């Protein structure tokens, strides 16, 4: 029996009178590579924020590594959807990646040689070692995404959460980011949120469809009945685990 890394039970989140997540139950085990897909507004980002402990559930419970999420933050690496930063902000790639050490270091402690070596290693893993002295404002979308992954890796996480890692990335770069994640999943549990249904199914080990509620698929075709349950509009039918492609058009009756 594999260890459970994330356990959600009957989790609901409401904000400003709107139900964002409704009675979600799901568990993610050690070594899983879970892709969560869903339309805009399905609550994907909210779900990640709950797992990070940034958002408290209205009801139900969330356990990460068997504990309250806020208490295990140093074991979680987070790659936000998009860095809303000022392109004029004077900060280098290396300094940004070093921020990944924040959760590990205490207040007042300064970054030391060990931190710098780990950050350098994370840059190399993410394939952007050559950009370390570049100003962040001078990076392309794909390079920023790799930098954010490197920052998450610098914290030496056991669980990696990514929010739309390929949203603002050109197609060639997209594939290489998925290749990078394929490598990373060998050493950590990965949860990825995306609306990029095309590519994701051929990489991840599980797919979950999120739209307020959740449906988890280990393998096989995601049936039309299941899809229409989750999405009230026409969707492509997804197949997950061989043959890993979209089979046919499906219209909701």
């Amino acid at each position, binding site marked *: 029996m594999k260890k459970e890394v994330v356990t959600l039970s009957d989790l609901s989140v409401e904000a400003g009178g709107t139900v964002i997540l409704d009675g979600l139950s799901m568990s993610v085990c050690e070594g899983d590579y879970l892709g969560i897909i869903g339309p805009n507004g399905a609550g994907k980002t909210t779900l990640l924020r709950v797992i990070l402990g940034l958002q408290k559930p209205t009801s139900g419970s969330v356990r990460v590594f068997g504990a309250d999420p806020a208490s295990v*933050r140093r074991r979680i690496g987070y790659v936000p959807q998009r860095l809303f930063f*000022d392109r004029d902000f*004077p900060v280098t790639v290396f300094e940004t990646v070093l921020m990944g050490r*924040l*959760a590990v270091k205490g207040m007042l402690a300064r970054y030391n040689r060990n931190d710098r070596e780990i950050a350098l290693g994370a840059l190399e893993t993410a394939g952007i070692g050559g950009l370390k002295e570049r100003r962040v404002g001078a990076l392309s979308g794909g390079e920023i995404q790799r930098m954010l992954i490197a920052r998450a890796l610098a914290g030496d996480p056991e669980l990696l959460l990514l929010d739309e890692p390929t949203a603002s990335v050109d197609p060639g770069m997209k594939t290489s980011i998925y290749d990078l994640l394929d490598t990373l999943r060998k050493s950590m549990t990965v949860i990825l949120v995306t609306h990029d249904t095309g590519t994701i199914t051929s990489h991840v080990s599980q797919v979950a469809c999120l739209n307020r509620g959740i449906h988890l698929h280990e393998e096989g075709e995601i049936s039309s009945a299941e899809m229409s349950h989750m999405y009230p509009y026409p969707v492509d039918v997804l197949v997950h685990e061989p043959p890993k492609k979209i089979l046919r058009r499906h219209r909701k009756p």
Partner: protein
Amino acid sequence: MEIFSYEFMQNAVAAALLASVACGIIGTYVVVKRIGFISGGIAHAAFGGIGLGYYLGISPLLGLIPFSLLSALGIGLLGKKAKVAEDTAIGAFWAAGMALGVLFISLTPGYAPNLFSYLFGNILTVPRTDLYMMAALDALIVAVVFAFYKEFLAVSFDEEYAEVSGLNTMALYLLQLALIALTVVILVRVVGIVMVIALLTIPPAIARKFSRNLRSMMVLSGVLSAIFTLTGLWLSYLFDTASGATIILVAALAFTVVHLVFAVTGRE
């Protein structure tokens, strides 16, 4: 060079240099976090403290310190915790602080000496005791920024990630505002509370164009504000103009020239 034999001139140069230290460091945060108007609000609200100083018959700068600190915390908490728009919080504190100052001064019998110099600065009349206080506040600012450099960088650049990393972003934000409040106290003697905002924003805004990280931006904007204040001081001595206003106009002129050059040469 004989003008430097006068004590008032030595004090003025010392005040300009001490102010530049705080300006360079704290102004950098003000510019990258885009909180120039919060800083303006803190500075103006602090006028209440100057009025209180007159009313109690103590040094107005002593009234200024608690007042600017309280208005910094007030604006910060009201803007983030209560459901009040930040610009509303700034506006309310800005005007209420000034109103309190006017009220205290009108309650004080007799004439309020030097009032004008607190509003618009007069670097030529900085007494030695104020220099010591400015130096002490500078030391405090440098120490706090040295201690929290990595935390301040994280919250300034990416507040959400700082929070995910377990930092108390609210406390760090309030600490930054408190440092701005202390910087206001240092700058009041040089350019006055009305024009503090210019020295907190112009030198760092120019420095940012030439800096790769916060540290170099701090150093460069400190050097720039020293150049501006000393040039302004020298010009105001030469032409017998108001020193605070002259310093600000020197800075504004440099700001314009730098941006024009960047616009003409096509650099971003």
